[in-house]
């Protein structure tokens, strides 16, 4: 009889994530779901719909718009509120966008700090949010492997890796003082492959950039950049056409594509299963210095 009560690992992960989201809603005053438009956010959104069904998602979504996101991402984002019946806040750090902050001019670290980290902290404080749900996964990067599902942040939004709250069983300590906040990662235990299997199983719509297609590209410092309004060829570079797709999506100047023939979910899953490199291989921010993700998180980055 036991076999009738067996849960597949995806169902298991789904149930854990739903449990986490409900704890967040029940324990915090004002949660927000950080929506990055990527595949993990798409899964997070579906899980939030499941957690509160047949009710609506009882908190808003917020996108931190650096102004360098791929055009296809923004098109996809702008259809979300009507399609999914959610409240979406778009937050931009206009002050630094006006100052023409750009990675090539100020360096990647600084650009990220002002357009992402600082903008995120401003967005959270201006909305009075005390809990921010995000789609980060422990498998993605080694400092993330050590992060709690409920990740406590001080009044500066900073993460202190040496002083994390012990997290046992599935009992989450959500208590904070005024001005402090918690980042919550319901997808902590999911891997890239789990995300793809779930997208297929649930028939979740994602940004078309994830699928391989002939696109105009520029090759630069080992990265394949999309030739779009943000990236134009420097001297000695040329725009070429290639069959590429993106494994992760971020800002156009810092997110590289991979050459791929995977134009369907099944082909993507097959590609991920035999992949030799991690999904963040083309995310320049992780490699700038040893422990650079960890440093960013200490400053308040996701």
């Amino acid at each position, binding site marked *: 009889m036991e076999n009738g009560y067996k849960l597949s690992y995806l169902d298991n992960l789904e*149930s854990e994530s739903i449990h986490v989201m409900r704890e967040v809603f029940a324990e915090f005053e004002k949660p927000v779901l950080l929506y990055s438009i990527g595949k993990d956010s798409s899964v997070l959104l579906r899980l939030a*719909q499941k957690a509160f069904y*047949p009710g609506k998602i009882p908190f808003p979504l917020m996108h931190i718009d650096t102004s360098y996101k791929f055009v296809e991402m923004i098109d996809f984002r702008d259809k979300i509120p009507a399609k999914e019946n959610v409240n979406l806040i778009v937050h931009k750090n206009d002050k630094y966008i006006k100052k023409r902050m750009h990675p090539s001019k100020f360096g990647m670290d600084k650009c990220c700090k002002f357009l992402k980290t600082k903008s995120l902290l401003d967005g959270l404080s201006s909305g009075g949010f005390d809990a921010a749900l995000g789609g980060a996964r422990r*498998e993605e990067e*080694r400092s993330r492997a*050590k992060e709690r599902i409920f990740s406590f942040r001080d009044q500066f939004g900073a993460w202190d890796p040496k002083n994390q709250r012990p997290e*046992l069983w599935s009992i989450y300590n959500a208590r904070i003082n005024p001005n402090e906040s918690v980042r919550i990662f319901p997808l902590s235990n999911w891997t890239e492959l*789990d995300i793809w299997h779930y997208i297929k199983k649930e028939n979740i719509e994602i940004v078309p950039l994830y699928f391989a297609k002939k696109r105009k590209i520029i090759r630069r410092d080992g990265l394949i950049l999309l030739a779009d309004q943000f990236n134009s060829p420097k001297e000695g570079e040329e725009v070429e056409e290639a069959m590429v797709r993106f494994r992760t999506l971020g800002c156009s100047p810092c997110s590289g594509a991979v050459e791929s023939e995977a134009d369907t979910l099944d082909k993507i899953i097959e590609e991920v299963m035999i992949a030799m490199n991690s999904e*963040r291989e083309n995310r320049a921010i992780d*490699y700038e210095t040893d422990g650079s993700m960890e440093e960013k998180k200490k400053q308040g980055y996701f």
Partner: protein
Amino acid sequence: MHKEKDLLRLVTAGSIDDGKSTLIGRLLYESKGIYKDQLTSIEDIAKKKGEKEIDLSLLVDGLKSEREQGITIDVAYRYFSTQKRKFIIADSPGHVQYTRNMVTAASTADLAVIIIDARKGVLEQTKRHSFIATLLDIPHILVLVNKMDLVGYSEDVYEKIKEDYLQFASRLPTHDIQIKPISALRGDMVVKKGNNMNWYDGRTFLHYLESVNIVSDRNLIDFRFPVQTVIRPNLDFRGYAGRIESGVIKVGDDIAVLPSGKKSRIKSIETYDRKLDKAFTPQSVVLTLENHIDISRGDMLIRQRNVPEIRDELEAEVCWMAEEPMEEGGEYLIKHTTNTVPVILKELRYKIDINTLHREEKKELGLNDIGRVIIKAQKPIFFDPYVRNHKTGSFIIIDELTNATVGAGIIWYPSATLPETENSQ
């Protein structure tokens, strides 16, 4: 099909230099749990330090400060899967803060893997880890005698360690304990059997991981449904959202609500995908009832004839996790299922010396200590003894002033009702 795989959570514990990182590295590598660019980044570090061989522990040591100091300071979670299962490894560092970390890592594990260096045999650390694994009631313990290559793959050495370990383990509550000889470095008995230990006819480590039966470890008997939140999209719908922490429920089943004791019947089991006829642990669902009862977060739905303990005084093994020692008679909060309740940690009955398993009369419970504590709660809580139900038998202790999680508790039987048959499966 990939998605039909099940999930096994394991904790690995070892002592310094016993080859744990090599073992995890090999598992991740052979099952593609590690990628080339991640490997390249640790190869670069080895080059920078002028070392010839790459240090696989760098894959596990995630924090910069850990790599600088060459020690692991926190639990790391690692993921890999095979054709049969998906695995989550909670890797607990062996030396610093070992009790706090291992208790944390062990709290969700189905299986504990404890590693012994074949040259050193059973150490104090081995005993500590085994004790914590049994305290946390991990259903399966696998002891790996590693570095067999360095003792000439000797059956005698293995048999001696096995005998020593089992002699020590006989003092622990009975569990499913298995022992295997391996060489993580050479690969013997890890994924492939190899030809060096033909005297051993057991399964390989990976084969064991893929086949150990975990379905029967779940409690499918006692229906416990702590309410997380109430879902009210409109006046006609009132549903109770939560996760079935144990047991099974069907539409039409009679239920009772704690603490009110009011009775009703399951009208529907709702999920986003479809309405269900039955649901079971650990599914997250929304339940609706035949009649309207006042129910809110912290309440628990149960079966009328299967009721948990309802008490405001309980006895628990407490693992203390804060620098500042536990204050006997001090006021704290506990979070138990979906309830947060003020408590007084009334009496420290004894502390356990986790090296000798002896009880010590001591009036202080400090960081990384484990002791038996009598707790008085402001209101009754609904619980089951931990050995019967991990989800309703566990809690965390919170310092109300700092909001820190200062301890973890495992609820023991109220002494008056301790049945004789428990702990002896």
